């Protein structure tokens, strides 16, 4: 049964894509919350250098040696960025923009020069070859499984253990590094471990999705989750879910249109982020617009109530407190006046008798609360 699944190319591809996304989504939230998302960009570019260097030194193009060795290149990037920034001559963002292109350029150049006959070429660097993961298999526990899938699963498991075991520490270090430091939690060391795991994940994902598309898997599912929830506990599972949706939908669309599978999966994570931006329950654009519209309506109703209350017992009452006056005196359009009036009546604040408008008891109380707030509570 399990073997039949693993022999199915479609399953292997989707599972690999999902594991890339899941492993990244375990770490991504902490990077995003620490405003270090662009470090994942730097890391995923410079692991190319690490992968080539490890290949030239040891001949390893997969497996633990490659993952650990090349992941060091990712950490090296961050160390170099901090070193350059620490000279005080270059800002942090410019330092990132200086270091990783240099390492990436060196990696590509070495590939050009020495590695023309191994399977890592500049094409793979950009695209990955997730469509072919099922061709390269290894024996694990009596099952024949794609090599990339096995290593992605291992990395995802390491990430999961790290995040679950150090959840509290990560949380404190992310939201309040000073407190974490005071508690003796070594937030900097923790951050470096996080970055090391990010680079390791990038290396393991390199064969599948290439260096640059990996950024999509680190940044977009957690960013989408960040717009959907306010709780870190939920950000991680939501990110993993988005990764799953994106890998399945991306595979399906890529098959349909005959385009790059990894590219399509990355585009789907982007679509998920786009949906979260538009439709997020609290932080989405639509929710924001609706909130604004509701606030505008409430304001209009308040203005109506106050207007009526101001003129309630005065001589101009006959002139002011009629529906027509809303247009002239409050400068409301016919439609707006009607809508606001309808809302006021529906809310039980305003009574309408022919043209004349008057406040209900509740409406009077509402107007008093607005006009003389100090009386509120005092009786």
């Amino acid at each position: 049964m399990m073997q039949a699944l693993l022999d199915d190319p479609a399953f292997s591809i989707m599972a690999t894509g999902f594991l890339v996304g899941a492993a990244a989504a375990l770490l991504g939230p902490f990077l995003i919350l620490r405003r270090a998302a662009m470090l994942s960009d730097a890391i995923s570019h410079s692991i190319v250098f690490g992968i080539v260097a490890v290949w030239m030194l040891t001949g390893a193009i997969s497996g633990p040696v490659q993952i650990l060795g090349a992941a060091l290149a990712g950490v090296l990037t961050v160390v170099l960025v901090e070193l350059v920034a620490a000279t005080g001559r270059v800002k942090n963002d410019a330092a990132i923009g200086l270091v990783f292109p240099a390492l990436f350029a060196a990696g590509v150049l070495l590939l050009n020069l020495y590695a023309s006959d191994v399977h890592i070429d500049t094409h793979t660097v950009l695209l990955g070859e997730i469509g072919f993961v099922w061709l390269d298999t290894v024996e694990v526990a009596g099952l024949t499984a794609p090599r990339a899938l096995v290593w992605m699963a291992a990395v995802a498991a390491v990430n999961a253990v790290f995040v679950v075991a150090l959840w509290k520490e990560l949380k404190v270090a992310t939201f309040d590094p000073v407190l974490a430091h005071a508690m003796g939690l070594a937030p900097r060391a923790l951050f470096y471990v996080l970055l090391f795991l990010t680079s390791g994940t990038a290396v393991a994902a390199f064969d599948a999705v290439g260096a640059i598309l990996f950024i999509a898997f680190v940044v977009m599912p957690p960013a989408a989750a960040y717009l959907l929830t306010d709780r870190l506990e939920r950000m991680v599972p939501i990110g993993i879910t988005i990764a799953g949706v994106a890998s399945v939908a991306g595979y399906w669309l890529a098959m349909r249109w005959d385009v790059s599978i990894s590219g399509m999966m990355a585009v789907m994570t982007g679509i998920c982020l786009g949906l979260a931006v538009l439709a997020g329950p609290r932080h989405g654009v639509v929710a924001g617009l609706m909130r604004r519209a509701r606030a505008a309506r409430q304001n209009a109703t308040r203005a109506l109530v106050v207007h009526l209350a101001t003129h309630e017992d005065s001589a101009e009452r006959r002139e002011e407190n009629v529906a027509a006056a809303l247009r002239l005196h409050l400068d409301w359009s016919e439609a707006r006046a009607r809508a606001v009036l309808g809302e006021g009546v529906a809310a039980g604040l305003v009574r309408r008798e022919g043209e004349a408008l008057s406040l209900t008891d509740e409406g009077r109380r509402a107007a008093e609360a607005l006009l003389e707030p100090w009386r509120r509570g005092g009786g």
Partner: protein
Amino acid sequence: MSALALLSDHTLMTVAMGAAVLGVVSGVLGSFAVLRQQSLMGDTLSHAALPGICLGFLWAGSRDMGAILGGALAAGALAALSVMLLTRLTRLKTDAALGAVLSLFFAAGIVLLTLIQRRAGAGQAGLEAFLFGQAAAMLRGDVQVMAGLAAAALGLVWLFWKEFKLVTFDPVFARTLGLPVVALEAALTVMVAVAVVIGLQMVGVVLMAAMIVAPAVAARQWVARLGPMVVLAAVIGMASGVAGAVISALGRGLATGPLVVLAASLAVLVSILLAPGRGVVWEWMTRRAERRALRGRRVLAAMQALAAEHGDPDYPAEQGMLDAYFGSGTAPALSRLAARGAVRRAAHMPGEGAHWVITAEGRAEAEALMAGPGAGEDRGAGEDRVAGRGTGGVGGQEMPGDAGAAKDARPGADEGGSDARGAAR
């Protein structure tokens, strides 16, 4: 190949011209981007050009430069707009917005690229060159398009120099003057996209980010004013472009982009280390000189105090005692003092260590040191002077893209300043 053969090589001349154009434009526009702390925007815009290239290709149906560059420019502008909207409309921060837009646009570009590959077959070969740059494939016509774009961008910078400068250094002040700050900032960002477009063939979308950042950062190390910085960045960009392009043309199978970027990175490294007045090596040497001078002054003052204590101006101080007093070897400091005649060796008993006597010049120097520049003033004024040293040391105006630590690296400026202040009192 001899130099003459290099000069007469048509392809190489084309490449060198293209590289020069790219270097100038990316240096000039990158200066503004770096100073406005938008270095990573260049990264995002360069990756984001890929789908534009593909769409331009699909639209024109062939490798038409006009359509491709137009598409790339449109995609860059759209990416910049997306970053702005994401940070304004949602609670995502700039880093997440940049990363998301970068990877989404690049993924879309990859998808389109594979679509073109399946459809057009061999015709796509020209498009892959845009990933890492392939200067050898560049035609004279391409260079002309690049030069036209570059002239437009540089003309815009020349026309609105004052406005761009003000928006870069002090956007709030610019707003109070009634300048259209948002429009000017948008113009600067879109012009980064123009630089990206110009560099596509030479460096490729992936590495173009470095061409925005590196020449500007390198130039900033040598000069402290915007005008010279822009000119120097253009020169550095041009030199790295030409160097990379020429090396790639000489060797076989070397992509141009990585070579150009490595040349520019080398320029940055050299600048950060060696730039006079600001470089790391320069600062290290200044610090060392200051440390030595201070050490010499302390030794001299100690010897003067010893002489006064013993009531003997020619009191021979034993070197071992001075070592013990300072907790480390004073031999280098003493020999430096001896070299300028502030101390001299004294005769001593055999079996004892070296003895030193302070000379008349040394005594005068030590007395001046003890009195201090604020001689005859009360203690409060002296403390004030010390407090003033931290802020008085900045030689020129501070660039907005700078980190603060460079402030104390101006050698001599602080001392001279405080001396002048002391004298003025």
